């Protein structure tokens, strides 16, 4: 007992110094200046001339959303390719935060290249990331976007989206009877057609592994849901029912799809089992239930319903089947999509007769309007939760265009569409996962 007393005494005595409050200073904000990155043109050891420059791809990617400023090679004081060659003072003078150096090396394998690069923290003179990449010479463009992704991720802590794609429906103004399901890179390159039809196509939705796209097609004279495999072009129709078959939304595990069927007399949400090819009813209400979207954790669905008299957003828990209303502001809230963190949603919100895209915090109920363009609809979120793309109308030319905005509302952009009929964008998941 005596020993125990001594122990307690000493513990108390010495622990009291732990409770001594140290000065704590809180930093609640920083500078608005973009992070400055410099990518030294990589060493090129191949015999043939480079088809294009990796640093130009990376510069264009990183500057896409005004989040970075990338130094031009002409303004560099030195051109190191190895870490030992780096004189950090040179880069501090240029106020560079991160430096990327590397080489494109010949591979033993014919037609292939090996690329090694490092991302360096200039202020602390530390190596943040080292990578070795291998690929064919033909995939040099993809390698460039992968490097952009890696840089973005190391600096921002969220994935880069420069290797992602956007699926959309194109209906050329010139040709009334043409509907084209297409995919493109986010910088507009690699635009190609997946499915061309003389009848309407809508609601494309990517599978979680990015290998398939589900969509609605009217090729048989009525709405039906199809799944197309990107690498082969093979198509498969889901078991179709009488009435509407639409609004496909892939489950996060890739085994199910939710869709909307009106075979019961009015549009309700149904669950499709991809293995057994059958539908199971999820909601049963005489109103219109449509536009479902799976939560990232697979536990609930968000959807549009007019059961209260006008379209509003509701959430249904898949296991308990409990339905909860989420939107209470305005008389038209529809087509909701979860952000990747599952804590917020975006949807079409009508205010004073104008359709906007709104961002809504599910916990606090706080809403912020993200867009101020015309007839905004079909919002889709980038897989890193940082950018939104949506369909809108260019009033001056009366054409359908795809527009985008960063989630903080600071950067806005428009994707020019040659045909003037781009709509229904769907952002792919992160592709090229390692």
């Amino acid at each position, binding site marked *: *007992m005596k020993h125990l*007393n001594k122990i*307690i*005494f000493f513990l*108390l*005595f010495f622990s*009291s*110094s732990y*409770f*001594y*409050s*140290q*000065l*704590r*200073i*809180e*930093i*609640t*904000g*920083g*500078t608005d*200046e*973009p*992070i400055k990155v410099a990518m030294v043109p990589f060493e090129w050891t191949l015999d043939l001339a480079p088809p294009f420059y990796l640093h130009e791809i990376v510069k264009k990617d990183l500057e896409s959303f005004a*989040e970075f400023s990338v130094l031009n090679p002409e303004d560099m004081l030195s051109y190191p390719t190895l870490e030992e060659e780096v004189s950090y003072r040179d880069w501090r003078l240029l106020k560079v*935060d991160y430096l990327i150096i590397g080489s494109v090396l010949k591979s033993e394998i014919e037609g292939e290249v090996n690329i090694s690069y490092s991302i360096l*923290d200039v*202020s*602390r003179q530390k190596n*943040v990331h080292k990578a070795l990449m291998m690929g064919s010479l033909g995939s040099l463009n993809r390698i460039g976007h992968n490097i952009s992704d890696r840089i973005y*991720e*190391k*600096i*921002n*802590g*969220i994935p880069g989206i420069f290797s992602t794609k956007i699926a959309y429906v194109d209906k050329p103004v010139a040709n009334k009877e043409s509907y084209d399901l297409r995919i493109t890179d986010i910088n507009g390159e690699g635009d190609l057609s997946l499915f061309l039809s003389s009848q309407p196509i809508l609601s494309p939705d990517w599978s979680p592994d990015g290998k398939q796209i589900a969509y609605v097609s009217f090729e048989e004279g009525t709405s039906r849901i199809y799944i197309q495999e990107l690498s082969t072009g093979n198509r498969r129709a889901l078991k179709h029912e009488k009435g509407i078959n639409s609004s496909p939304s892939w489950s996060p595990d890739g085994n199910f799809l939710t869709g909307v069927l009106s075979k019961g007399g009015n549009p309700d949400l149904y669950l499709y089992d991809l293995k057994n090819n059958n539908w199971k009813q999820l909601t049963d209400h005489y109103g219109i239930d449509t536009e479902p979207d799976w939560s990232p954790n697979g536990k609930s669905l968000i959807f549009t319903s007019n059961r209260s008299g006008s379209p509003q957003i509701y959430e249904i828990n898949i296991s308990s089947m409990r339905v909860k209303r989420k939107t209470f502001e305005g008389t038209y809230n529809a087509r909701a999509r979860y952000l990747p*963190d599952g804590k917020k949603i975006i949807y079409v919100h009508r205010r004073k007769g104008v359709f906007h895209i709104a961002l809504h915090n599910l916990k606090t109920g706080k809403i912020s309007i993200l867009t101020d363009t015309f007839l905004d609809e079909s919002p889709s979120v980038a897989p890193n*939760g*940082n950018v939104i793309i949506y369909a809108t109308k260019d009033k001056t030319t009366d054409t359908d265009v795809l527009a985008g905005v960063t989630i903080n509302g600071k950067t806005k952009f428009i994707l020019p569409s040659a045909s003037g009929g781009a709509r229904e964008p769907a952002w792919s998941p992160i592709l090229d996962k390692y």
Partner: protein
Amino acid sequence: MQNLFAGFFISLLIHTGLVLSLSNIFNIDLLNFQADYAAPIPAYLVFEQPALTSKKEYKRIVINDVTPESKPKIDIKEMVLKPDQEILILESKATKPNIVKKNKINLSEKNRILFFSSVIEGQIRAVWKKPIVPEGLSVELVLSMVPTGEILDVKIKRPSGNEAFDRSALIAVAKVKKFENLSMSAKLFDDNFRNFSLIFRP
């Protein structure tokens, strides 16, 4: 059995007494105590004037052994203390010191701490480039500094869980390297600024 209880009770009394007296010595407010951390001092309080430019508030301890006519008086009023400077004044046995009472000084110690905290905060803010990270993150760094303002060491005390966010805080500290305009008394520095925490919480 009874003996055990008595002994336990007495030791409980002693330890409670110890806790109470120790907390008193270290100025710990037991009633408002939080085990996780003390609330950070808000460094955004507005100051009318940094009263350090006023030289009137310094302690006037004057004296030396020699008669006033032969040696010049050290006029403290005209001296501005640099952070690493201390004025040592010898106290004469003969005469009594003429000390200005402490409560006549306008700036309390707490206000001085707040002022210098805001100076530090401002210099960090000017260089911190916050990355695009999820909301609600915060990282706590511990810095050790010398009176010149030079940062000797920085460590992560409590990481945010996001490597990029933590690194951005470390980079901000690395960019500052040396805090400017931190002229304060040695005691104030040692008590508060030799080792302190920075909490990055946007």
